[in-house]
């Protein structure tokens, strides 16, 4: 007993390590925020909302986020379901194709698209949304793919059909509710991507929220930093809301907690 007296038990050591990691990580993330807050000052937060272009750029970003998310889910969900059910051999090929937008730089995409896009699209912010759909594809497809892998899709689809459900009913009442977590992950990732995208918007000459922050930083650094912090807080609130809503339903049906990292958890559970 005396020999062991100087050594802390394993549990205590591991708890201490957790606290050290938490504190270091906390400092790493919070220090820049604290510095930004000091730099901007509380007054800047009040004046951000009344700045020229704040409302319109935020509205444009939110509109683009909604349009992009709707188109992305509408395209990716049936595709992912179809590939899982009917073309399982093409799953790897699909993964490869959907990852392409990450490999190709956004600047290449936008320059190429602007060169060939029809003029009615060039004059519409819809073009930007369509480009964002391409950018969101890797995140959305992978989130949905992971969700589908965690389901015994073939069996529940066949069970649904044997009970008299049409394809539409099967998709709406059986597949979609069980992909809730994956759909939330895909939505969060898509929205986060759209709200933070800068290159394409600026080259397409649209003043989205990130572009407005950049432009404003040229004239008023304090206001643009305050705007960035506001964006961060709003994004975290949205994520928190999604997490709470998703977890409430998911716990009821045995799916666990929904977070941005659910995608990773689903992938390990799926195989």
């Amino acid at each position: 007993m005396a020999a062991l007296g100087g050594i802390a038990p394993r549990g205590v050591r591991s708890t201490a390590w957790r606290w050290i990691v938490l504190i270091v990580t906390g400092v790493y993330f919070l220090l820049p925020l604290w510095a930004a807050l000091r730099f901007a000052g509380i007054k800047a937060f009040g004046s951000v909302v009344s700045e020229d272009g704040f409302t319109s750029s935020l509205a444009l970003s939110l509109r683009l986020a909604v349009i992009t998310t709707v188109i992305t889910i509408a395209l990716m969900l049936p595709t992912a379901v179809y590939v899982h059910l009917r073309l399982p051999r093409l799953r790897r090929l699909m993964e490869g194709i959907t990852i392409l937008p990450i490999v190709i730089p956004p600047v290449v995409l936008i320059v190429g698209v602007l060169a060939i896009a029809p003029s009615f699209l060039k004059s519409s912010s819809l073009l930007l949304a369509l480009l964002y759909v391409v950018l969101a594809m890797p995140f959305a497809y992978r989130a949905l793919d992971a969700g589908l892998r965690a389901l015994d899709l073939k069996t529940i689809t066949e069970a649904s059909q044997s009970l008299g459900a049409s394809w539409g009913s099967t998709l709406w009442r059986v597949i979609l509710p069980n992909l809730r977590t994956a759909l939330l992950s895909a939505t969060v990732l898509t929205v986060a991507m759209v709200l933070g995208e800068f290159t394409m918007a600026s080259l397409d000459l649209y003043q989205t929220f990130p572009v407005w922050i950049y432009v404003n930083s040229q004239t008023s650094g304090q206001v643009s930093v305050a705007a960035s912090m506001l964006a961060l807080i709003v994004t975290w609130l949205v994520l928190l809301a999604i997490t709470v809503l998703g977890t409430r339903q998911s716990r009821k049906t045995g799916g666990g907690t929904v977070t941005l990292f659910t995608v990773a958890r689903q992938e390990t559970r799926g195989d």
Partner: protein
Amino acid sequence: MTANTANEASTASTATGGLPGSERGGTSVVLQDLTRHFGATRALDGLSIDMAPGELVALLGPSGCGKTTALRIVAGFETADAGEVLIDGKDISHVPAARRDMGMVFQSYSLFPNMSALDNVAFGLRMRKVGTGSRRKKAAELLDMVGLAPQSGQFPHQLSGGQQQRVALARALAIEPRVLLLDEPLSALDAKVRLQLREQIRTLQQRLGTTTLFVTHDQEEALSMADRVGVMSNGRLEQIAAPDELYADPATAFVAEFVGIMNRLPASLEGGDRVTVLGSTVPVRAASQVAELSGKPVDVLVRPEGLRLEVAENGNGIVTTRTFLGSVTRVGVLLDGDVALQADKPSSEAASLPPGASVSVTLPPEPVHVAARKVSE
């Protein structure tokens, strides 16, 4: 009552009429010359089965014999390359699965994770536009019938494997299917639950009179539950018969060996219809099937109860093991020439056969099955 409510009530009575617990007429099912290829593999090779209304037919066979393919063709999840599926005399080959009115219980757990047990059972009725009240009442009755009324509000992840399969059974029965299809529904369960559910399925099936096609690789399941058992091999139906007939009078060597325990004893063919084994010559059963074996080494197939075993000082075998099975004792014997066999003796007579005893094994002069000799590995 509004027109809408009246319509709902009438649909409800159509879907729920008389169940649970009532006797119904049942539906005849005919599988006619079904053929199905997967690439170069022939999964079904002219399968034909005639099921009487209310009958439970089990398809039994080793993995890859085509039994699940046959079931999936009946369900509408696969299409046959050739042949027809007739329900009450009507070809349904081109009717989609959703409109076939067939209840199916799957091998893997197939409950919808987002729905409670009650909602799972009510799902098929919902698809048939049965009103909320009627479908919940019917679903509750069915859950009660499978002994899961207290679990009606639980979600699939809160239920055990056996409970999930019982909910799946209730769900399949809720739509009052014309045919019930069971795709190895017990294979994922432990032995005790499997036995209970086996009896429950059979009792319900007989009570409701639903024509049922049951696919399994477990012969005990098939023999204990089915009115008739169809043994399949390489996409073909080797034999379909009542369990006792299948055991006592197998039509082919494959069936003889696949169903129950079978000994193989080296033998030699004498002409086309007799065979010499253990020093005596006996007739060959299904002689037409052994014509191709002429001149080749063959084995005779004999069940443990088909052998005579007597204590003999200079017999042709030595007792190696003795296993008490109740009224009979199974005796393991090593014959001259290193051939091991099992023979059954009434337990009252087995006391005189301790391991090491010299015995004489003979064959009664009854027809036996003959198969090409199996080369031991």
